C-alpha cells in the first residue's frame, strides 16, 4: 500500500512540475508586456502612460529583462520557499491576494458540491427505484435538459429573474458593504443571502451529472440479488434504498464528487464574473488581461494543486471505501 502511495505521490509531483513550467512559459509567450499601454480596452478608460525609461525601470525591478531560463529557475527556487512572487499590477504579494479571494471561491464550490450531491443523489435514488415509471421519466428528461445549460448562463437567467425582476436577491457581491451588523448571525445571513444565486447556478449546472450517475449506479445495485433478498424479507422501501443499496452505489458517486471539485472551480470562475463575486474568477480574467505574470502563475498553480489534491483524496477514499481496490493495489505491486 505504501509503495502504491509513494508512486502516486511521485506522479503528482511530476504533474505539478509540468504545470508550473507551462504556467511560466505560456503567459510569457503572449505578445506585449505588462507595462505597454497603448490602447484602452473600455471606451472612456484613461490610462497613465509609462515613458520608455519608466518601462525599462519596471522591467528591471521585476527581473523581467533577464533571460527566460534564469527567470524560470529563480521562480522555481522562490516557489520551493513558498514565495509565489509579487503581483505587477496589484502591488502586493501574490499569495495574499489569492488567499483572500480563494476563500470565497472555495465557499461557493463546497456549497455547490454539497447541495448538488445531496439533491442529485436523492433524486437519482428515487429515479432508480421507480425506474421506467413516469416519475423517473419526467425527472430524467428534466435533468437531461438542464444539465447541458452552462453555469454562467443559468447565473444570468437567475440574475435577471430573481434578482432584478423579483428583487428577492441582491444583484452582486458577497455581502452588503458598509453595513452595521448587530449580531454575527446577521452577517452570516447576509453572506448566505448573497451566495444563494451563484450557488444555485452552480448546483443546477452540476445536478444533471450527479443525478445520472447515481441513477445508473443505483440501478446496477438494485438489480443485485441481495436487494431482492431484502425485498423478500419484507424490509421497508426506504430502508432498502438508503441503508443497503446506497452504500454500495456510493463508490462512483464519491469519486465523482472529488473529481467534480476540480471542474467546479472552472464553472465557479465564470459564475463569479456574472455576480461580481470576489473570488478567483475576476482575478484570473484581470491578471491575464494585464499580463500580470506572477499572478497568472500563482492562480493557475493554486487551481491545479486543488484539482490534484481532490484527485489524490479521491484515490485514498476510494481505497478505503472499497477494500477490493486496496487489495488489488497490493496485488499489482
Amino acid at each position, binding site marked *: 500500500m505504501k509503495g502504491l502511495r509513494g508512486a502516486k505521490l511521485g506522479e503528482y509531483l511530476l504533474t505539478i512540475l509540468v504545470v508550473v513550467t507551462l504556467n511560466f512559459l505560456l503567459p510569457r509567450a*503572449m*505578445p*506585449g*508586456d505588462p507595462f*505597454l*499601454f*497603448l*490602447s*484602452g*480596452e473600455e*471606451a*472612456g*478608460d*484613461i*490610462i*497613465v*502612460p*509609462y*515613458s*520608455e*525609461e*519608466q*518601462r525599462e525601470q519596471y522591467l528591471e525591478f521585476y527581473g523581467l529583462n533577464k533571460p527566460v531560463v534564469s527567470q524560470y529557475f529563480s521562480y522555481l527556487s522562490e516557489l520551493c520557499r513558498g514565495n509565489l512572487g509579487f503581483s505587477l*499590477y*496589484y*502591488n*502586493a504579494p501574490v499569495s495574499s*491576494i489569492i488567499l*483572500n*479571494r480563494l476563500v*470565497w471561491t472555495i465557499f461557493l464550490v463546497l456549497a455547490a458540491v454539497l447541495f448538488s450531491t445531496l439533491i442529485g443523489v436523492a433524486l437519482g435514488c428515487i429515479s432508480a427505484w421507480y425506474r421506467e415509471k*413516469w416519475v423517473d*421519466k*419526467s425527472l430524467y*428528461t*428534466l435533468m437531461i*435538459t438542464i444539465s447541458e445549460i452552462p453555469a454562467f448562463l443559468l447565473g444570468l*437567467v437567475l*440574475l*435577471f*429573474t430573481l*434578482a*432584478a*425582476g*423579483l*428583487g428577492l436577491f441582491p*444583484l*452582486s*457581491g*458577497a*455581502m452588503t*458593504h*458598509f453595513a452595521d451588523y448587530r449580531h454575527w448571525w446577521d452577517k452570516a445571513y447576509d453572506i448566505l443571502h448573497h451566495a444563494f444565486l451563484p450557488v444555485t447556478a452552480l448546483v443546477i449546472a452540476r445536478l444533471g451529472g450527479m443525478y445520472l450517475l447515481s441513477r445508473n449506479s443505483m440501478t446496477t445495485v438494485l438489480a443485485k440479488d441481495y436487494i431482492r433478498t431484502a425485498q423478500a424479507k419484507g424490509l421497508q422501501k426506504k430502508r432498502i434504498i438508503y441503508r443497503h443499496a446506497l452504500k454500495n452505489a456510493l463508490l462512483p458517486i464519491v469519486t465523482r464528487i472529488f473529481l467534480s471539485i476540480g471542474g467546479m472551480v472552472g464553472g465557479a470562475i465564470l459564475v463569479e*464574473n*456574472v*455576480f*461580481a463575486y*470576489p473570488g478567483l474568477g475576476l482575478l484570473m480574467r484581470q491578471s491575464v488581461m494585464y*499580463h500580470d505574470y506572477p499572478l497568472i502563475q500563482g492562480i493557475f498553480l493554486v487551481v491545479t494543486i486543488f484539482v490534484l489534491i481532490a484527485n489524490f483524496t479521491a484515490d485514498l477514499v476510494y481505497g478505503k471505501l472499497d477494500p477490493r481496490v486496496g487489495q488489488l493495489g497490493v496485488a499489482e505491486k
Partner: protein
Amino acid sequence: MPKKRSLTLVISLLVLLTFSCGLLYGCKIDKAKETSKTEGKKTADVIKLAGGDYGYLTPYAHYPRGPGIFKMRLIFDSLLERDEKGYINWLAEKYEIKENGKQYLFTIRDGVKWHDGKPLTAEDVKFSFEYAIKHPMVSSTISEKDIEKVEEVGDRQVMVTVKKPSAVMLSNLGTSRIIPKHIWEKVDNPKEFLDKEAVIGCGPYVLTDYSKEHGTYRLEAFKDYWGPKQRVKVIEFIPVSEGILAFEQGEVDMTGVTPDVLQRFEKDPDCKIVKAPAFWGYRMLFNMGETAVFQEKELRQAFCYAMDKQDMIDKVQRGAGVPGCAGILPPDHVMYNSKAKQYDHNPKQAEELLVKLGYDKLENGVRVNSKGEKLSFNLLVGGEVRLAEIIKEHLGKVGIEVTVQSVDGKTRDARVQDNKYQLAITGHGGWGNDADYLRERFSSEKKAGGGISPNLMRFKGYSNPELSELLEKQFETIDENERKKQIFKAQELLAEDVPEIPIYYTTGYTVYKPAKYDGWMFMFDHHSLEHSKLSYLERN
C-alpha cells in the same frame, strides 16, 4: 405513447417557466417608474457608485487607471484644480509666472489642515515636489529633467525654478499631489507604504474603508476641509456586475448607458441623461517608414475623402459618436480650431486624387499605376473588426484594397510599438488632454523623456519641418493667447497633411436621478462626471 406525453409536458412547462420569468422581470421595471417628478437635489448624505479594485488610494499605490487616479485625488489636493473651463486656484491662493516661464511663485493658502489635524505649510509643498522628483508618483507629471530647484520663500510661498520654460509646466506643477512631509519623510519605499497614515491628505474626503477583494471604497467628508463645503457627506463605491440593472434597482446612483438602452431612460421623468464630451477616439495610422507610398500626402487625403465617418458611427456606435477632425483635436477640446480643413465624405474627390498620383487603371477593382503597383494594404486591428470591415468597404469603393488582420489588443499594441504594420487602428482616451500631445505625436524632433501612451507615439517616416518647428515653439510659449494661435495653425497644417486619420470620437451617455443628487459637472478635459472633484463640492 406515455413517453411522448411526459416529454411534451416537461418541455411546455419549461417554456412557460421562461416566459413567466420574462414577464415578471418586465413588470418589476415598469413599477420602478411610478415616482413623482422632483427638483434636482443639491446635497446628499450618501452617494453610491460602481466600484472595483483600483488599489489603495495613496499617490504611489493606486493602479495606473482612471478610476484609481481620480479617487486618490479626492483625498489628496494639489495647487490647482480643474473646472469646466480650465484651471482654477486651489491650494495655491495665487501664482505668478516670472522670467517668462523659468520661475513659478505659488502663494499657499492659510488655514489648510491635513486629515490628522496638523497644518499644511509651504514646507510640505516644497517637500512634495522634491519627493515626487525622487520617487515618481503613479500619475506623475514632473521629473528631475524639468525642475532645477524648489525653494521656500517666506512663510507661505514656494518658488519653483525650471530648467526650460514650457507651456505645460504650470499645469504639471499645479496637478502634482501635495503630501504631508511629517509622514512621508520617513518613507524610503513609497510603493510599499500601505499604512493608515499613507492616506492622510488635505483633500475634501477621507478614506474610511477599502477592501481589495470586494473592490469597495468608502470616502467620508473631511470636517475641517479648507475649501468649498462638501455637498455629499459619504461616497460609497460598491461592486456591480451589471451597471444598468444596479442603477434601476437603486444600488448605484449613476451609470453609463449605451445608445440602444437610451429610450428606456429617455421616457423616465426621474432620470436625467447627460452626453459626455467626446474624448475617447479611434485613429488610423500610416506606417510611412515601411510603406513608401504612404508618404504621398494626396494618398492620405484620398483615404480621408473615401471614408464615410458618419456611416461608421451609425453602424458601429449606433450614432453615439462625433466624426474625427483632420486637425486631430476633437470639437470639445478647449483649443479646437473649427476652421481647419475638413474632409467630408467625397469618393469622387478621392478618386481624382488617386488618378493624379498615377493610379488611374483598375485591375479587378483595385487601382494600379503604370508600374503595376497596386493600392493594396494590410490593416492591423485589435478588437475593432467591425470598424475595420466598414473601412475596407468604403476604401474598396474608390479602388483601394484592404486586408483586415485582427489580433488581440496587446498584440496590436506590441506590433504598433515595433512598427510592424502597414495600416493600423488604435483606440484610446485622453484626446482632451493638453494640446501638447500634438508635439509628442507629430514633431519629428526627438524629445527627451517622451512617454509611451496612446497619444504619444514616435512617428517614423513622417517629417514636416514647418509643423515640427511650430509644435516645438508652442511648447515654450507661456502667453496663452499666443499659444492658442500657434495650436490653431498646427491644426491647419495637420489637417492639410493628414499624417494620421482620427476616425471618430465616441461619446458616452450617463444617467442619474436629479432627485437623488444633481451636483455633477465635467472637467474641461475629461469625460466622466463622477471623476470631477468639484462634482461633490459647493459651487459659487
